[in-house]
């Protein structure tokens, strides 16, 4: 008896009860679609995090004060900008930042970050100016009250109006808008990267934060490959310039590196993906148990037919393969439809994440669904094959 023959019997068996076969397939369909889609969501969110970190700039280092320390001063920042001791550092931007309420003609908007820095900050933080211009080094020296605002701020304060040249107040201090930043794609869950205003360091210190310690220092390496070297050079200079207080054994500052951040985030995302995949895998297992259940019912229902086939000389193997083929076909069809469903589902944004399908997860889910058919179908198929012909024929 050929394989084709067996498959034809199996198709006929599945077709005999379409609703039941359909529901059984639905179990596998949901399982497979869930595995593929959830893994895609995990993968998509990992991709998003990576994009976001890359948008921060892969060649920047951020030196941050730890525990409200006042170790980071403009003097320290100047010291880092040293072509002899730190040849791989391209630029150093001292940063002071604060929250500020921005007002334009009676409209208030509370911006998340008002950053005071130097012109090099725009390049280092990957925030090019779209309309208008950046401030200059001269603006910084003079402490001119000018500001470049992010897209969100522009939308909030100047709906339908060109903001360039308008005057706004930040916590009461007057600033002139001279430019608007390009829209950044890296909107994260908590922080809107477009919700920012950037002004000269001196102006912000003078009007808002005072001449105390800096919030951070953004250091840009010459190339992404030189980031590690730049970090070593920066850390050497910092250790000379900043004395660790005797009362504490930790440094009062921390150097963060975007690629390190990227690595940590990727690891987190991978764990997340594995977890999602495991949960979806459970639903695939439940679908498999559904197949066993329905095949057991089918075998019981068709006991008489099995008896007839045996009386006509069907060997045990023929019965076994027929039911096994039926179970496998059910799960494979369900799996195939599940892949289709996952493909369709991946076109939609799910919980703010655009799923990115991992090709290997499709292959894996299909293989698993075939394995499920074989494994969960084997119990009922064996039961059918082992029936004695006379018992099967007498079964009512």
């Amino acid at each position, binding site marked *: 008896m050929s394989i084709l*023959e067996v498959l034809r019997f199996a198709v006929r068996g599945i077709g005999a009860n379409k609703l039941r076969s359909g529901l059984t397939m639905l179990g596998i369909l949901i399982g497979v679609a869930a595995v593929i889609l959830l893994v895609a969501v995990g993968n998509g969110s990992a991709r998003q995090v990576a994009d976001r970190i890359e948008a921060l700039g892969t060649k920047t280092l951020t030196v941050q004060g730890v525990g409200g320390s006042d170790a980071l001063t403009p003097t320290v920042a100047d010291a880092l900008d040293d072509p002899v001791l730190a040849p791989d550092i391209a630029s150093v931007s001292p940063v002071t930042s604060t929250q500020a309420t921005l007002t334009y003609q009676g409209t208030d908007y509370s911006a998340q970050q008002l950053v005071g820095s130097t012109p090099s900050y725009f390049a280092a933080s990957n925030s090019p100016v779209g309309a208008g211009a950046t401030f200059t080094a001269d603006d910084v020296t003079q402490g001119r009250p000018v500001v470049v605002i992010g897209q969100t701020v522009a939308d909030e304060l100047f709906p339908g109006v060109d903001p360039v040249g308008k005057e706004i107040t930040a916590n009461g201090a007057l600033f002139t808008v001279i430019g608007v930043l390009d829209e950044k794609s890296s909107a994260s869950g908590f922080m809107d990267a477009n919700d920012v205003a950037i002004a000269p360091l001196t102006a912000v210190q003078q009007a808002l934060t005072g001449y105390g310690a800096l919030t951070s220092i953004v250091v840009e390496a010459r190339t992404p490959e030189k980031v590690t070297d730049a970090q070593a050079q920066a850390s050497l200079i910092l250790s000379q310039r900043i004395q660790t207080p005797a009362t504490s054994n930790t440094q009062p500052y921390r150097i963060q590196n975007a690629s390190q951040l990227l690595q940590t985030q990727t690891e987190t995302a991978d764990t997340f993906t594995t977890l999602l995949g495991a949960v979806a895998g459970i639903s695939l297992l439940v679908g498999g148990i559904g197949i066993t259940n329905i095949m057991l019912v089918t075998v019981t229902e068709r006991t008489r*037919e099995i008896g007839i*086939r*045996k009386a*006509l*000389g069907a060997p045990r193997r023929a019965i076994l393969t027929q039911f096994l083929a039926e179970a496998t076909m059910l799960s494979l069809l369900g799996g195939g439809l599940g892949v289709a469903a996952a493909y369709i589902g991946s076109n939609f944004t799910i919980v703010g994440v655009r799923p990115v399908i991992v090709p290997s997860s499709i292959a894996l889910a299909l293989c698993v669904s075939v394995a499920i058919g074989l494994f969960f179908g084997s119990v009922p198929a064996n039961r059918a094959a082992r029936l004695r*012909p006379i018992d099967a024929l007498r079964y009512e």
Partner: protein
Amino acid sequence: MTVLDVRAVTKVYGQGAATVHALRGVSLTVARGEYVAIMGSSGSGKSTLMNILGCLDIPTTGQYVLDGVDVSRLNDRQLALVRNRRIGFVFQSFNLIPRTTAVANVELPLAYAGIKAAGRRRRARAALDLVGLAQRADHEPNQLSGGQQQRVAVARALVTEPALVLADEPTGNLDSRSTEDILGIFDDLHAAGRTILLITHEDDVAARASRLIRLVDGQLVTDVLQQRVPA
């Protein structure tokens, strides 16, 4: 030439107090071309005997030689082969596979015998033609009358050209016209030299056979050759 040789076969069902002796030592030989009717009241063991002869059941003790092969020594796979090649079984309740066309039903034993699709179809149609149902080949069982279903079942029993045709009350569920059709087919088969064993409890059906056996309480009581009564 002996087709079937049964020696002191017994069959016991159940255990302890519930023990039933369905067959108490039946011995029987049937030669090629014989047309044997087995009669007996309900519970006389005739169906048990038929199931053992058809290799659907295994005797508790005794020996059964079919076409020179000792069937009691065969394993599961070999028994399936014997059922497929040597025996054609006709049941009282037709036992066609539902939702499957007549010709596909007739093809089934050939499929299990591993015969190619084209040859199978040709032989199945020839067998259906033999029972006068060639034009009904593509009907499913529920579109056929009882008599037609039984004729399909007879065609299915014949299609492998078995050494032995076993019929377990083939006319038990049929009206007199259909009964006549089926018995007519058996007459033709007998004339063509087939060996037929048929269980019945109707005297006029038994009268068509060339040999009559009666079973009482699992034992063979009469075994006579008789003059066939033509229809």
